[in-house]
């Protein structure tokens, strides 16, 4: 018997997108496989690594722990939506400048997390940065340059505001 699907509408990176998904379809799979936005990565499928973090109505959520049907009608920002056209966002530029990524697999989750962090707290202390990114795993960088990148992104945002 064919699986029942639900029609949902998401506003992803400012564009209205429609999909027919089974009730059990994860938001991460919906974004990646139904909508073709493969920038959102899946590292553990149990909400620990943070690779799949996207912004749901501006707030970071684990898309691997979210059913797509539960966010019908909501706004989602993925890594593909962070840049302003061809110009990378301050957070993206800071990660490049500070060598805040190596293999790049965890990076989209960090970028979404940090984008929300700096929006809410434009001048975070060291402690606040560590706390802010302490829900995202990275196996390559040892985090040192990610912490540096968060501070640098705050600087760039201040310079450009």
């Amino acid at each position, binding site marked *: 018997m064919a699986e029942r699907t639900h029609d949902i509408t998401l506003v992803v990176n400012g564009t209205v997108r429609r999909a027919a998904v089974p009730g059990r379809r994860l938001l991460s799979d919906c974004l990646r496989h139904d909508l073709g936005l*493969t920038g959102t990565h899946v590292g553990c*499928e149990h909400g620990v690594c943070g690779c799949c973090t996207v912004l749901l109505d501006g707030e970071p959520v684990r898309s691997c722990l979210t059913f797509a049907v539960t966010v019908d009608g909501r706004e989602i920002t993925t*890594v593909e939506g962070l840049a302003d056209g061809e110009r990378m966002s301050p957070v993206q530029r800071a990660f490049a400048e500070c060598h805040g990524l190596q293999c790049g697999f965890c990076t989209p989750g960090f970028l979404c997390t940090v984008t929300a962090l700096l929006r809410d707290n434009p001048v975070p202390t060291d402690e606040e940065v560590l706390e802010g990114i302490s*829900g995202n*795993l990275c196996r390559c960088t*040892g985090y040192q340059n990610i912490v540096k990148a968060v501070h640098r992104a705050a600087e760039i945002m201040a310079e450009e505001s």
Partner: protein
Amino acid sequence: MTTKLFGEPVRRREDPRLLTGRGRYLDDLGRDALAAAFVRSPHAHAVIRDIDVSAALDVDGLVAIYTWEDLPDRLAEPLPLLIPHPALTHGRTAYPLARERVRHVGEPVVMVVARDRYVAEDACALIRVDYELLKPVVGVEEAAQSAQLVHDDVPGNVGARMVQEVPSAGGLDVREVIEDAPHTLAFRLDIERSASTPLEGRGVYARWDADDSSLRVYSSTQTSTSVRMAVAAKLGLPLPKVEVIAPDVGGGFGVKIVHPWPEEVLVPWAAMLLNREVKWTEDRREHFVSSAHERAQVQFVRVGFDDEGRVLGLEVTILHDHGAYTPYGIIVPIITSTQLPGPYRLGAYRVEFSSIYTNTVQVTPYRGAGRPQAVFCMERTMDRIADHLGLDRTAVRAVNFIQPEEFPYDQGLIFQDGRPLIYDSGDYPESLRMLKELIGWDSFPAEKERAAAEGRRIGIGVGCYVEGTGVGPYEGGHVQVTSDGRVHVSTGLTSQGQGHETAFAQIAAAELGVPLERVSVVTGDTRRFGYAVGTFASRAAVMSGNAIALACRKVREKALRIAADALEADPRDLEITDGMVHVAGTPGAAIPLATVAVLSNPLRYAFDEEAARATQFAGAASFDRPPVPEGDEPGLEGRDYYSPIRSTFASGMHAAIVETDPLTAEIRILRYAVVHDCGNLINPMIVEGQIHGGVAQGVGGALYERMVYDGHGQLLNASFMDFLMPYATEVPHVETAHLETPSPLNPLGIKGAGEAGVIPVSAVIASAIEDAEGIPIDKMPISPSELFDLRRAAS
């Protein structure tokens, strides 16, 4: 070199793609592919009595179900034993799908192919496998003494036993030397299992082109060339009909060098059989129970030394747990046993290891590959000697160091590449001096006293290592300058985040004298370069870096020859700057490299304006010789290989200051310092990043990460919830200083840097905790509860 790029912290060229969601990792490809999923054994040791798939057949979207009985010819045979060794007398490998017997939880038994992964897993859940349970063999000491066998035809569960011995200068064997030594110590050390755990697991995606009878396979692998050969052999396809590509890979750290994984041959086979694209993406639990682990060893140490702490004789006996199978041979214990002497001149040395089967996940190299265990053993020994004699721990190390004038230094051992273990260069006394200055070693006792006065416990630790890097047999590079002036570089080995696209472009741009932006680099794509070994053993920069440099030198020589003809100059007077070939000191006389590329390829047809300059009526041709002279080739391109006589040996020293909570036994790293010597640096920013990441993995291995097996062979913590990979909050800030002792073995004078950061961390942290607590630390990792128990036992 006219363009200063080598040695500069150039920003990575990979980053814009990876930062904007345009990276292409394995699961990002093949959106319309069918999905494979596997029924894996829930038991550590069992006989398969029956497999009943009938309940799964009605699942909507099911395409196929395969068991071992369905596998043809060579696919039905055990997977290859990749690195045979005479000491591996009882090497055993798994079947792609289990045949009659399963030997660890997670072993694949049935492959299901379906419309998508959800449906494939639905079908897996409905397949019934009837197992007859056997007693599992868990724990390396239990396995070494057990009557229960992992493989019926492997007595004592011993896969390999190997001895290497270097007698004293006077010809005495180690045991005699230790007997006669003024001081002797004997003790035992333990290290638990950990694993690479890259954030992207393994994955395979295969496309069969029935019209062309060709197969394209994408794999998240550290060696696409060897996967290609394995797939062609297993599926009986001509090699030119198979291409394998490693796309963006989300970390490897060793686990992805193993190949072919069962899935790497099964998925392409299914794609051919079904004439459909098929993809399998490993999930996290699968990665924990069906890929590979490392580290676990028990070491028994006997050492004899003099009043100054000079090691006169060292004897180490190692029990190495290699899990259920040995696809990667005994490389890990070989590295442990041969890298154990580190930067020291040992009077006499004997090492013996037994590599033992257990009903657990197989053990293959994880970043460091046996060296963290080796360094733990040697450095714990140094600390014990210092403690026994009441000497400073760095003084004992210093008195044992090989001195700078002693290179090349032959340790008298045979290394993992089957070649003599001869250190090429290094400066260990200077490294130690730099490290002591960086961490403030000499002022620490006063600091410790001040802390004690405040009721705080702090301790300092140190650890030294030597790492054989850049092992052979070879890598190659191909460099082509096209008529638009672009430079296309390719090499066969693969990338998992090391920044090869940047570092190799720096080398090519510097060698050829072209702007960095003109250079593009492709790695791990057999369509571009078919001959390669792979990325492991901190070898990519050394091997492919030098191969690319040599290929560039060929291209440069040809470019100068052609340009000299065109400019009517002597090639020896020419240089290349910013992509222009010009007479040194005469700015006017110049020709773009792009034009040289046009002239290098005599044409009949003018496909564009530039090309017209190379056509047969464009003039300037000599009628005395053919358009392509004998021994020459059309095009401005070159290919070369670098094959070293032996490995080059990087080195380093780490120190840490830790604080232990007097009540809770919580362990906190206050400072972490690294002095690192990998010869000439191509890109210091990238090297530092490698060190940071390595140290973080080392901290995980020292304080948090372990694989917890119960007596039934169940891995109790097979998730990121329970296997504690460190977050940003657990990793200390790393202070680094570089020493650059060039390698005399290769043209660029470089040594490998990829694994270094992880190697001495457990030794360093143990040393520092011991200093803080005054209790011997001989087991790693160590948790607060374990430290708490040690305190209670000591009091």
